[in-house]
């Protein structure tokens, strides 16, 4: 059994999940804020678009992403700027796919937290000379901390467990796109059960820890709010 060969997909997966989570938080905060505060009638349509990855089969999402990231899609055009031909089958492509795939898992808890704040703290901040921008950073975000924590944990975990989308847009290039779930699939295909066992059991423990962590965050924020 080659330890380096086992470690490579783990490291790649952690790297992908970390980059994806940071991007997800940055992208989700303004979307969640708008969804929580806007009175536009069409905001639920936007919310539905954000939530679609929950329902769509990953292969469908992956198929369209493949077209979008490929040489003839916008992804290819962007890749062209950096001297590449395509974003499909690259780490960057995986990050883009993962962000879209996990978006609802991050937007929803943050939106809930923003909504739970209500109007009052924002009005109080306004009467205390805080501009809307100042209020967003120094009142809304700190008060929505539990939502950001839950969102970060869920986004990270969901990216680690990703399979279908990555299979479609990334294939199985070792060190580049061969993440954990793909590696397990390959090991099983080639009847290397021992390696598959090690990685799978690790995932079971990881999943348990994630769920426990979110439950604990949730409980703590609720007991603080009383």
């Amino acid at each position, binding site marked *: 059994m080659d330890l380096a060969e086992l470690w490579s997909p783990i490291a790649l997966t952690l790297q992908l999940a970390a980059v994806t989570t940071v991007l997800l938080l940055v992208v989700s905060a303004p979307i969640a804020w708008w969804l929580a505060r806007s009175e536009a009638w069409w905001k639920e349509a936007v919310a539905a678009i954000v939530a679609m990855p929950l329902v769509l089969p990953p292969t469908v999402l992956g198929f369209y992403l493949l077209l979008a990231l490929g040489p003839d899609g916008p992804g290819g055009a962007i890749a062209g700027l950096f001297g590449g031909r395509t974003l499909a089958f690259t780490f960057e492509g995986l990050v883009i796919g993962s962000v879209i795939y996990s978006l609802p898992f991050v937007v929803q808890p943050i939106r809930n937290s923003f909504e739970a704040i209500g109007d*009052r*703290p924002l009005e*109080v901040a306004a*009467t*205390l*000379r*805080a501009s*809307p921008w100042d209020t967003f950073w120094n009142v809304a975000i700190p008060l929505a901390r539990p939502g950001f924590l839950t969102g970060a944990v869920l986004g990270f975990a969901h990216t680690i467990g990703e399979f279908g989308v990555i299979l479609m847009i990334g294939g199985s290039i070792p060190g580049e796109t061969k993440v954990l779930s793909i590696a397990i699939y390959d090991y099983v295909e080639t009847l290397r059960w021992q390696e598959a066992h090690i990685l799978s059991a690790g995932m079971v423990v990881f999943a348990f820890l994630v769920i426990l962590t979110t439950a604990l965050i949730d409980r703590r924020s609720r007991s603080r709010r009383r």
Partner: protein
Amino acid sequence: MSVGEISAELSGRRGAFELDVAFTTPMRGVTALFGPSGCGKTTVLRCIAGLDPLRGRLQVGETVWQDTARGIFQQPHTREIGYVFQEASLFDHLSVGDNLMFGRRRAEKRNGRSKTESLSSDEVIDLLGLEPLLDRDPYGLSGGERQRVAVGRALLSYPKVLLMDEPLSALDRRAKEEILPYFDALHQRLDIPILYVSHDPTEVARLADQIVLMGNGRIIATGPVSEVFERLDLGPATGRFEAGAVVSARVREHMAEDSLTRLCILADTSDGLRETGQFLSLPSVNAAVGEDLRLRIRARDVALATRRPEGLSIRNVLSGHLTEIVEDPGTAFAETLVDIGGARLRARITRAAVRELRLQTGDPVFALVKTISFDGRAIGAGGGLEPAAWRTRGPNE
């Protein structure tokens, strides 16, 4: 309009509710926006803060905050206000000290240190007794403590006007009594105007100098508190059950043996307070001899007699004459106004009594006030039978 005034003309519609108000009030002292629940007083206050937009014009001193006709609308965070909400609404993610400094830091960044600064932060903290709370989290505070922090936070942001929206209504009786003395101290110490929304006549009588009486989205009356409260035609708006008069009185002597305090009733004249030579006694008041107090005497606690009664347990019998009788058709009652050597009392008696005693305007009468009937709620902590007495301020304070 003069520079030393707050003037508001606001109108608009919220659902089926229509609001149309215009008033001016001086740039000092406490002005109560007073009226029954749902009359629009909170909406007016929120408009002044810029939190709810209505059409109209709003000027505070020299600054125009809103003028719809000229397209002016200053955003709430650019208006120099302090706003105290019904619930303290402290920021849960900040300590008490950081809550207090939240507005102050931003006001200083925006305007530099205000030249018209009236109170230093130490003074505010001292005045509201906040020192022991500074390092604590908002969670552990009692309702009264939270509201004191909220008032301090608003005051520290260099406001030109302090807006308070029923700041006591979410508190229980104990917490109210704990916080009221702090409000009295503020009232005496602050030189910025306070707009105070309330539906509680006792609170208004205790704290306010001027009153803007509202009902159903309209202004019904404005003026000094004592004048508005004694106008009989305003009965329905000021709350008939709680209708009463605000009377000033000077402490004459303490009669320790009977646990009573004797006070001389004062008349409010154009040259200040003048003694009327009529006396009241009430259960011991914690005030020095010579000090002036304000009392609120409810109309339903005053009875009238045409001759000085004898053999009566009521000790407070005041002689005066009837200046107004307003019968309330469809009910058993009539509202009357009695002049006591320049001070005025309201009495609520039955229409049958008016007829049988043949009471007419100008008749000499004796007003009977039950000693224990002074409104106990208005005084600081203590038993329910304590009188409603509090210090009056001189006109220039």
